[in-house]
């Protein structure tokens, strides 16, 4: 039997191959191929998550093929609790995205080619356990964004004037992300050279570095390269400005993947590489990053408040929410890290949902500007329901995955970064402000006559992507235990490893190690 | 007594004259002549070294270099003819359509 991970990676890649040979007029066939190429990974990802051996943890479902012997590069696939969850996230969003892409009417073949390429790249990053392939897929995921935004995207207008053209957005995004990636690449190469293990394999490096830790000074230098390099895509304040503009310009299915998954590449990479491999560097730098991500949360939220374009609101809200993820990572307690990973999942699905909805609204009304919209709930009851759910998920309503995750991040970062945790709670309030304003402005109020032609997502097929996304949010939100346990399998050892060279966290909390339970008994 | 160094200095001077000529003379024919000068400077150096080393190869190399230089000038003259025919000029400064 074929390895599940290989299947996940190859299904979209094969889709690309197949599409290359399909004539461009066969639009129905092309779409079906794309749906198939993402449905298989979805099923497989579900299988992987359910069949992950929870008793042993670690990396599982390995696929190992030696690739470049001279450099110690191997094609090594494997997932641990963290990446399994993210693979599932990506599979869900990719599947929904392909369905949402049915709205694309022109140059369909090329669109799906690039789209599947993007999907393959992202899967590759989450599955790779080899630095070379990690970076390989990472870059591969970034580049298709250029044509996807440039060709199928839309300009951002303010009062009829183009403020940010789609070309600007596409170019900025690509160059920005590539710059970050290259910075990270130099860090990776430095790490590779200085650790002397002659291997790009993450697992091998982990073990090697545990046995022969890197010099603290070196770690101090390499860590920011990796953290900032990958932080660009996370996006870390103030390197975030590519993201809302990119979101706004991209076609909705691309915004979905962009916000849902592409951003998570950054935070995932930070967890997987610098945090994992450079504990001393992490301890030195994380407080600074924690400060920056508070800026993400508050500043991103405030900027979102002032926006009028729906995609910009969600775009800045994404950058604000990624601040929670980064805060969870920085706080570096098992709890906060679990929360961060779960929030990656929750925020990913939520934001994919939001962008899909905005896409639908834009397709139907040809505007994304808040003042021009209103009263759509009457015409689009289904979309409006989903919209309210997305807004509520975003503002951390219980029942959605985001609530659990944000809760865990806040609780988890309380000990280490109290001020940041308080500000994170404030961020929830800010989120509600702009989310409610958006829902109010778009869906509620008197129906706008000029929008009377807008149509709801009426057929079950048209509703499928939304239902899939909402179901994912609700299921995880109502019953987070299995997923949290899965994530915990990997985060707990990671935190222990990263903190090992320093004082344990408990010292910060209590001078006396008195067990209160014993006293009470 | 004329030593190796004298020859070398002479060769250096020749080389420099050629180089300066290339940089200052506008006429393409003069430039070609100056290029010849540079090659001949090298030739002088080869011969001088050959003499000093007592090695015949030095003179042998010169033959090759002369041949090459001759070929160079041939091509150069051909291009000069093209220039005068098509561009109606031999002034290199006037030939600057390709820039930036």
């Amino acid at each position, binding site marked *: 039997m074929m390895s599940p991970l290989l299947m996940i990676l190859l299904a979209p890649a094969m889709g690309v191959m197949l599409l290359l040979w399909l004539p461009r007029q066969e639009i129905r066939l092309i779409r079906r191929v794309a749906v198939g190429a993402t449905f298989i990974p979805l099923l497989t990802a579900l299988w992987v998550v359910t069949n992950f051996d929870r008793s042993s943890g670690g990396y599982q479902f390995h696929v190992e093929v030696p690739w470049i012997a001279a450099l110690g590069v191997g094609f090594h696939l494997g997932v641990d609790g963290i990446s399994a969850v993210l693979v599932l996230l990506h599979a869900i969003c990719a599947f929904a995205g392909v369905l949402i892409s049915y709205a694309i009417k022109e140059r369909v073949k090329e669109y799906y080619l690039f789209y599947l390429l993007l999907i393959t790249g992202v899967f590759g990053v989450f599955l790779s356990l080899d630095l070379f392939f990690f970076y390989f897929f990472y870059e591969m995921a970034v580049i298709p964004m250029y044509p996807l935004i440039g060709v199928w995207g839309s300009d951002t207008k303010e009062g009829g004037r183009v403020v940010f053209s789609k070309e600007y957005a596409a170019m900025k995004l690509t160059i920005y992300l590539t710059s970050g990636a290259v910075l990270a690449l130099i860090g990776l190469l430095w790490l590779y050279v200085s650790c002397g293990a002659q291997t790009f394999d993450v697992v091998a490096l982990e073990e090697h570095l545990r046995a022969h830790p890197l010099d603290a000074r070196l770690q101090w230098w390499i860590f920011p390269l990796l953290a900032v390099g990958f932080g660009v895509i996370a996006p870390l304040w103030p390197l975030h400005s590519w993201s809302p503009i990119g979101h706004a310009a991209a076609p909705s299915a691309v915004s979905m993947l962009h916000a849902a998954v592409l951003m998570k590449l950054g935070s995932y990479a930070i967890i997987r590489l610098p945090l994992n491999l450079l504990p001393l560097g992490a301890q030195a730098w994380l407080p600074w990053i924690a400060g920056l991500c508070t800026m993400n949360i508050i500043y991103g939220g405030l900027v979102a*408040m002032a926006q009028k374009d729906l995609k910009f609101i969600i775009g800045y809200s994404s950058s604000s929410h990624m601040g929670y993820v980064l805060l969870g990572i920085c706080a570096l307690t098992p709890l906060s890290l679990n929360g961060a990973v779960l929030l990656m999942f929750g925020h990913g699905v939520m934001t994919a949902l939001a962008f899909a909805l905005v896409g639908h609204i834009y397709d139907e009304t040809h505007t994304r500007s808040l003042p021009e919209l209103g009263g759509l709930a009457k015409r689009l009851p289904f979309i409006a329901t989903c919209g309210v759910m997305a807004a509520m998920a975003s503002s951390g309503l219980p029942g959605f995955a985001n609530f659990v995750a944000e809760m865990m991040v806040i609780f988890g970062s309380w000990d280490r970064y109290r001020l940041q945790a308080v500000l994170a709670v404030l961020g929830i*309030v800010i989120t509600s402000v702009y989310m409610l304003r958006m829902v109010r402005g778009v869906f509620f109020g*008197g129906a706008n006559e000029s929008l009377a032609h807008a149509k709801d997502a009426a057929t079950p097929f048209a509703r499928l992507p939304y239902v899939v996304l909402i179901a994912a949010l609700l299921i995880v939100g109502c019953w*987070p235990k299995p997923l949290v346990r899965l994530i915990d399998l990997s985060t707990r050892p990671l935190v222990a490893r990263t903190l090992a060279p320093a004082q344990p966290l408990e010292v910060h909390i209590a001078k006396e190690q008195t067990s209160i339970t014993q006293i009470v008994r | 007594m004329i030593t190796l160094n004298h020859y070398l200095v002479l060769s250096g001077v020749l080389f420099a004259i050629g180089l300066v000529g290339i*940089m200052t003379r506008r006429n393409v024919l003069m430039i070609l002549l100056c290029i010849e000068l540079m090659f001949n400077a090298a030739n002088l150096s080869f011969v001088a070294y050959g003499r000093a080393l007592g090695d015949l190869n030095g003179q042998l190399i010169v033959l090759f270099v002369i041949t090459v230089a001759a070929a160079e000038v041939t091509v150069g003259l051909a291009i000069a003819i093209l220039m005068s025919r098509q561009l109606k000029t031999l002034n290199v400064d006037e030939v600057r359509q390709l820039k930036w």
Partner: protein
Amino acid sequence: MVAQPSAFSLQPSAVFCAWTLLLSPLVSALGILLFGISRRRLSALLANGGLLLSFACALSLFVQARSGGLTLPLELSVTWIGLPDFSIPFGVLIDRLSLLMSLVVTGVGSAIFLYSIGYMADDAGYSRYFGLLSLFAFSMLAIVLATNWIELFIGWELVGFCSYALIGHWYEKPAAAEAGKKAFMVNRVADFGFLLGIVWLWAVSSPIAAERSVQFQTLYQRLPHLMELGWLSPTALTGIGLLLFCGVLGKSAQFPLHVWLPDAMEGPTSVSALIHAATMVAAGVYMLCRTFWLFEELRTVLTVIAWVGGATAFLSACLAIVESDLKRILAYSTLSQLGYMVMAVGLGGAGAGMYHLTTHAFFKALLFLSAGSVIHGTHRQNIWELGGLWTSMRWTSLSFFVGALALCGAPGLSGFFSKDAILALAHEHNASLYWLGTVTAGFTAFYTARVWCVAFVGKAVSPAADGTSSPAGMVPARSPAHGLHPHESPTIMLVPLAVLAALSIVGGYLGIPAFLGEQAAELHWGIAGTSLVVVAIGVGLAWLIYGTRSISPSKIAQTFGPVYRLLLRHYRIDDAYAWYVDRIQQRLIASACALFERFVIIGLAVNGTAWTTKTAGRLLRLCQTGKVQQYVLVFFVGVVALLYLANHP
């Protein structure tokens, strides 16, 4: 933490009842979401069935508890998040307090659900309404039955959402949409403090990270030990208490975060009855009682609570006097009564608070439902446009009358006993608050009598020509209203009225304080007498002004000009908030950030870098002059540089 095995083996039916009590409305809500969206009857059936089942379970538990078949407290839970250092259970905690509250929620709730079948009969969003109502019932029960802070917070947030969605039920009305948004936002601001309080409490709940807990039981047991150890300082606990009380400010709409409740009257009246009178707004009070062990010793916090409650009671009663919208009058009255309850808790009388909560749930739900019936029959809710309902809507008026009597604290009715208990408490602990409460009782009587006299007894006037309701308190010339053809509501709406009316009457004799373990309620005759006098004055004044019109209200309004105008503008608190949100938050802070983003981060940093790079390229290409001799020169300089570098590495 799985269900306690002993509980399982001994009381299987209790376990079942407890879980069903909590979950059955959730199942209804899910059922409506999945199957009922386009089936009106099915949704109504599911919602009512679900809540009735819950009510039955609550009753069964109550009976078992009374008969001794069930030892309280009963705690059942499953693990919701199961991490070694963060284990959050989700479950039900049944003790006398939660049992009483769940009886109120499911009982009053059932009446209102039933009422809604008739009240919302013509509404397009019927299924959505019942779905959300069911979800609300579940969320409210989650608060009531919560075993820990997180579960409570989950319910807390969910009721907020349901309230938001139900206030905005008629979302096409901009006022409704805005009111929903406002309610949610104000609660969110309050929850900022509430959540921080929870986190802080969790963080101090043990010196060892892995042993921290949010469980009520655990915290209750640990608290004294933690203080003893010195791990938890009284200051910190005071801070925690105040933060937690922030949540109450929002949810129970205490000053100065009360502003959302009057606006929330934009929702359907049944929603106002259930959520904004009987249950959700009382959740804050319930939470205080639930975790009273935490506040018990915190003098500062309790004082703050008492004064906030007293102030709310008084200030809202004043607002009710000048209000002319039937529902908004009731809303201010709710605020005022909530103030009483909060004050009671602040004075150390959680039991009294709960008592008043219960009776208030009965009579205020009754009042709202009667008002709903009026609105249903007349499509008016400005009291000046109403009148003479006594003759056309006899049953509705009768039930309103009962509710009004209970609210005023007429002797023998439920409100009389519970309010008396609170005033007695205040008399015992804090004289100023006692007088404040007593005066408020007079005001209460006044505005209740005013509504009665104007809307039910008097004659209606036509709506103002410009369509806006006439300014409150200014009595326009009385003339018969046009198009007012009141008709009595259908039976399905009258039955719940009757039930609630009965409860409002007998609520004082059900032994509620006793059930809660307070000492047997005895009437404090002195206090009762005083308040009766005050009430009588209030009623009398109202009768003189609005009934017999012996005193001109406009003259009074002129006499108290500034005060009156201040009251009309709701103490300008709304204005202040609007000013802050619009001017400071939106135009100043958010816009400044957006400008910074646009011009500094995007414009200067990012585009500036791009510009610099491009300009460097444009300049560098100029090196390529096209003059071959300059190329040779550069070549030569390059060689010289190379030779120099070679010899001076």
